[in-house]
């Protein structure tokens, strides 16, 4: 068995193989692999005995279940109203400038993916962003350079 098959089998053993266990299994694969490839979705379908189309349909519904290759660190900048008012664009410019990628792209070294997302629930400390599960609030261009610098040097 290859590593992905192993991973999926372990997740299915841990959570169960019923339909209601599908989301935790999908989340588990995303946690490890950063995204759900067509291959992993087919493997999940086989392991859990669910039609592959159903797995695909479910996975593509959720914005945090990536189905395109993504980097080790996924940066999600909140674009909803308060963050938009408080300077998320400047934040995005700073990130794009630093990583040399556009929104939706991944750096060639597969370390950073930049995305926009809907309300993160930090409107009182806007603008906010997530790097994987970590939250950063009241980020200005200066701070974001500092934060990304740490990630680049892997000191976080």
């Amino acid at each position, binding site marked *: 068995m290859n590593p992905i098959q192993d991973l999926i089998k372990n997740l299915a053993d841990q959570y169960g193989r*019923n*339909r*209601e*266990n*599908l*989301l*935790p299994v*999908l*989340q588990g694969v995303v946690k490890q692999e950063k995204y759900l490839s067509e291959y992993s979705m087919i493997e999940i379908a086989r392991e859990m005995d669910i039609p592959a189309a*159903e797995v695909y*349909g*479910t996975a593509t*519904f*959720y*914005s*945090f*279940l990536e189905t395109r290759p993504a980097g080790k660190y996924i940066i999600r900048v909140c*674009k*909803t*109203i*308060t963050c*938009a*008012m408080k300077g998320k664009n400047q934040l995005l410019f700073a990130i794009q400038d630093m990583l040399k990628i556009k929104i939706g792209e991944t750096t060639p070294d597969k370390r950073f993916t930049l995305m926009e*997302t*809907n*309300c*993160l*629930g*930090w*409107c*009182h*400390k*806007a603008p906010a962003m*997530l790097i994987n*599960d*970590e*939250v950063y609030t009241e980020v200005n261009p200066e701070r974001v350079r500092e934060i990304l610098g740490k990630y680049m040097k892997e000191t976080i």
Partner: protein
Amino acid sequence: MAYSYQLKRVDFIFRNENDWEKVLSTTIKKKPDELINELISSELKGRGGAGFPTGLKWKLTSESKAPTKYVICNADEGEPGTFKDREILSKVPYKVLTAMAVCGYVTGAKEGFIYLRGEYKFLEEELNKAIDEFQYYCKEINLDFRIKIFMGSGAYICGEETALMESMEGRRGEPRNKPPFPTQAGLMGAPTVVNNVETLVHTWTIFKYGAKKFYDLGVQYSRGTKLFSVSGDTPKPGIYELELGMSLQDFVYEFGDGDTKAVQVGGASGFLVPRKKFRDTAIGYEGKLVGISLPTGGSMMLFNSSRSMFNVLDNYLEFFREESCGQCTPCRVGCQQLLLGIKAVKRGEKPASYLNKLLKLTETMQLTAKCGLGQSVANSFSSIVENFREEMIY
């Protein structure tokens, strides 16, 4: 001033209380009927925004004879401008867990779930620790109730209770037809109580201090207190517990920056109130005797005169277009067309009268969309377009 009372700060929800064990053990010594009556007489309504009477919800579920029932704590807080549930779960998780267990005792449910939005994954670890400690105590007092966290994965619509249950059953978060209501057939077809995080904490207050203490706060039809998430153009953004029934004018005096042009009450799915209507607007559930009464899940966003209302509406519509589950046509196509429509008017490709057509479209969506998302797009759309029409055009 039209309304004479001032804003009343209250401190119930975040009050630091270390006696949850005692509250739990004494509450479950009372009869379920007694507790339901206590809740009904407090007139507590759901704090997620919809405002369904909580006591009635528990009662309906408890009356069912089904062998399996569930309690779900809805922590899929996704409405733009709301961030109170996260604060509750990180500061006073025991109140939520206790209330869930009491709900289980009252309704006969043995299992409870916290549906936590993916954006709040960082809370999971701490919350699991609290759950472990809580379960240990449940065993000690022989209370058979288990709580688990179910993680969401970034979908606003999953805050709608039936979409939430679809999601927990491993499917796309597409809302179901109602009826049957969750109290009859919810998670896995079993009767289910779905309560907002804040609602559960209010039940704790009611069980600990009695219904009267809660009922004495607020105004008729809108009893008790509410957590408000204040953001936007304000010198003091944050979370505040206030009595229901305040006038928006008083609210703006307290939280405005002196240049407040409009306030969005209830997030993107709520209403935008322009300055000229501050005085006539009260914050509470429907049924207030005078003036307009606006319910809110807690989101209060202030905009000052430097903000373009076109940009605000554009931002909301983009949000709805992305978060619409796509299941029913009025919402899926409606959200897209509204967004394209206002842009076309702004660019001069469509005449100003086209806005009237779009308003009709929101009416259709209100009547025909399957769930609250599609139905409530009309709220913000019509209140912005009607009050700031010139900003949509020029």
